[in-house]
């Protein structure tokens, strides 16, 4: 249509009036109603929707916490405890927010793992994948700054250790550290800027998530077989099939979440963060939050400070180029017998690093982290490029519907609209 009103088929007259002038309802219907989605998703495909819900929970609880929180080095700790005691259901707000961060990382780690296992990063979804890595980096920055806000011992010393890492960079290092601190040590100025940025970054994440979804809706989703849908028999409309499946997954997610919040709210935290920050007393072991431990282990596995910092950042940045390191045309690891084993071993190396990161920097943990870190990088930089050339994949199924329905006739209600691919 060149100009004038949008041709809307929304039945409700009021909604139609809006839709003719601004077709958001048509868009929602197209992107979340009839959107053709591969019919063979397993439950790993729930985690994107879970991450979305989690992000909204974080923003909602965070805004209410910020109404009662005081970002001052002499009052922050007590203001958090006052939220726990004197604000109506403040303990619930805070425990949901704190454990929500852990849930967010669990969900997103599984989401990323899914992408790696089923080759979702490969063409044509490279940009979608890279936007995901951007989201992950933003999440890490947000979580790190959030953990500083209660101004406990781990907040303070974690912030000191992590910000100090930047001093390893030649020339600009000291300058960056001073900029992060807003002075010459972690202090009130640091707390203030971290609070400001901690409030800002989630909205940046919302923006990048929007782009992530835009990119997803151009390429369409990947699926456990890693082959593209070839026609309507291979897809189902997103609603009601996947809205129903996501709803079930969402309730399971809430059960795990509630288990943490109500029965083990401090299980994933560190007791030292209930000791008010004291610049004169260094805790025996400074450990970051659990979700940073794999990267912390890589940092400590390298004897040289700058080397460690570069390896730590490199261990995530390498995800950006994953689509070009893995040249195999087969996406799903189901059909890549060798790569599958190598990737499962990579998963083990990641978990081993997580475990080592929480241990003191002494033997045998340092040596174990070195082996695990070496494998972590070797998988991306050596194994995948090599396997792209030499591995012989298993035969791929002819189509999704053949693999799922065994090639029988199509059930009547199950056909989706034809793929509207760009």
């Amino acid at each position, binding site marked *: 249509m060149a100009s004038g009103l949008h041709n809307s088929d929304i039945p409700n007259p009021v909604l139609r009036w809006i839709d003719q002038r601004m077709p958001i309802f048509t868009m929602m219907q197209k992107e979340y109603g009839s959107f053709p989605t591969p019919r063979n998703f397993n439950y790993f495909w729930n985690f994107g929707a879970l991450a979305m819900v989690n992000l909204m929970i974080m923003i909602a609880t965070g805004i209410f916490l910020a109404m009662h929180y005081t970002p001052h080095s002499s009052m922050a700790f007590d203001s958090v405890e006052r939220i726990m005691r004197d604000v109506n259901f403040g*303990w619930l707000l805070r425990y949901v927010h704190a454990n929500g961060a852990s849930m967010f990382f669990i969900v997103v780690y599984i989401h990323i793992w899914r992408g790696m296992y089923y080759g979702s990063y490969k063409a044509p979804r490279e940009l979608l994948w890279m936007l995901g890595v951007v989201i992950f980096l933003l999440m890490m920055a947000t979580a790190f700054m959030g953990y500083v806000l209660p101004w406990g011992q781990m907040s303070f010393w974690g912030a000191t250790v992590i910000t100090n890492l930047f001093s390893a960079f030649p020339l600009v290092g000291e300058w960056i550290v001073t900029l992060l601190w807003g002075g010459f040590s972690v202090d009130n100025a640091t707390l203030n800027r971290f609070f400001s940025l901690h409030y800002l970054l989630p909205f940046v994440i919302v923006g990048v998530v929007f782009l992530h979804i835009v990119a997803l809706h151009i390429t369409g989703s990947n699926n456990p077989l890693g082959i593209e849908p070839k026609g309507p028999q291979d897809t189902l409309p997103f609603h009601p099939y996947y809205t129903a*499946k996501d709803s079930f997954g969402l*309730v*399971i997610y809430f059960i795990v979440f*509630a288990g943490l*919040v109500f029965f083990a709210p401090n299980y994933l935290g560190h007791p030292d963060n*209930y000791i008010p920050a004291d610049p004169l007393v260094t805790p025996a072991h400074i450990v970051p939050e659990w979700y940073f*431990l794999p990267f912390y282990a890589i940092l400590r596995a390298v004897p040289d400070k700058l080397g460690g910092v570069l390896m730590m950042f490199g261990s995530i940045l390498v995800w950006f180029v994953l689509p070009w390191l893995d040249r195999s045309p087969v996406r799903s690891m189901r059909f890549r017998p060798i790569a599958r084993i190598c990737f499962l071993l990579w998963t083990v190396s990641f978990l081993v690093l997580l475990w080592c990161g929480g241990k003191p920097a002494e033997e045998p943990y340092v040596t174990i982290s070195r082996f695990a870190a070496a494998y972590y990088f070797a998988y991306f930089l050596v194994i995948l490029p090599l396997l792209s050339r030499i591995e012989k994949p298993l035969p791929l199924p002819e189509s999704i519907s053949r693999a799922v329905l065994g090639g029988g006739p199509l059930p009547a209600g199950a056909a989706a609209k034809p793929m509207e691919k760009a």
Partner: protein
Amino acid sequence: MLRTSLKALAILGGLLAAAPAAQAAEGAAHIPNQGFSFQGPFGVYDRASAQRGFQVYSQVCSACHAMHLMSYRNLRDLGLTEQQVAAIASQVQVQDGPNDEGQMFERPGRPSDRFRSPFPNPQAARAANNGALPPDLSVIAKAREGGANYIYALLTGYGDPPPDVHIAEGMHYNAYFPGHQIAMARPLNPDQVEFADHTPATVENMARDVATFLQWAAEPELELRHSMGIKIIVFLLVLAGLAYAVKRKIWANAH
């Protein structure tokens, strides 16, 4: 589908289990579990024990340890009456002001006042304790690995050091304190307090009661949290059943 879901669960379980295991402090003695009434998903506070614990705190520990996050009015939640709380608060003198003449003045405490701190500042606390700082006990049960079990172990863990251990001047041997040398002298001795309910004031009983009180002080929301949690989980389990049934029904013609 089941296999992959199991895999997802295994990863999740692995992540959850690895985290605190990763943080468990090494070198500290194993802390025995005392089976407190507030442990476990249905746990509630033993009110009588927590009230006795408050008595131990105010008659013994409060000589050195502040609890500046607590107000006297909070004691209502332990089952004390308004009159009892007002009487307890009025026993202390607190500084208030400035008044209309610009003067600070002392007045008897009110239920809305915070627990009075024994020392005006950390320097004074150190000066009175051989240079050691008695920590604020408001959230101590959340601030130590082991929580109330650790506090009980600490308070009952005094004794003679093993022959090969040298204890520095002014320090005391404790089996459970990290490093085994603590600046706090044995705070509890038999019959140090007299309980109105005739509970024998053994060191173990007093330690148990004060540990219960400190746990309550650190987590006053625990009972509400537990009871809400049970209801919410039951509700979610029912909802999960419904959501699964709906999903099955919708997918019935699509497999």
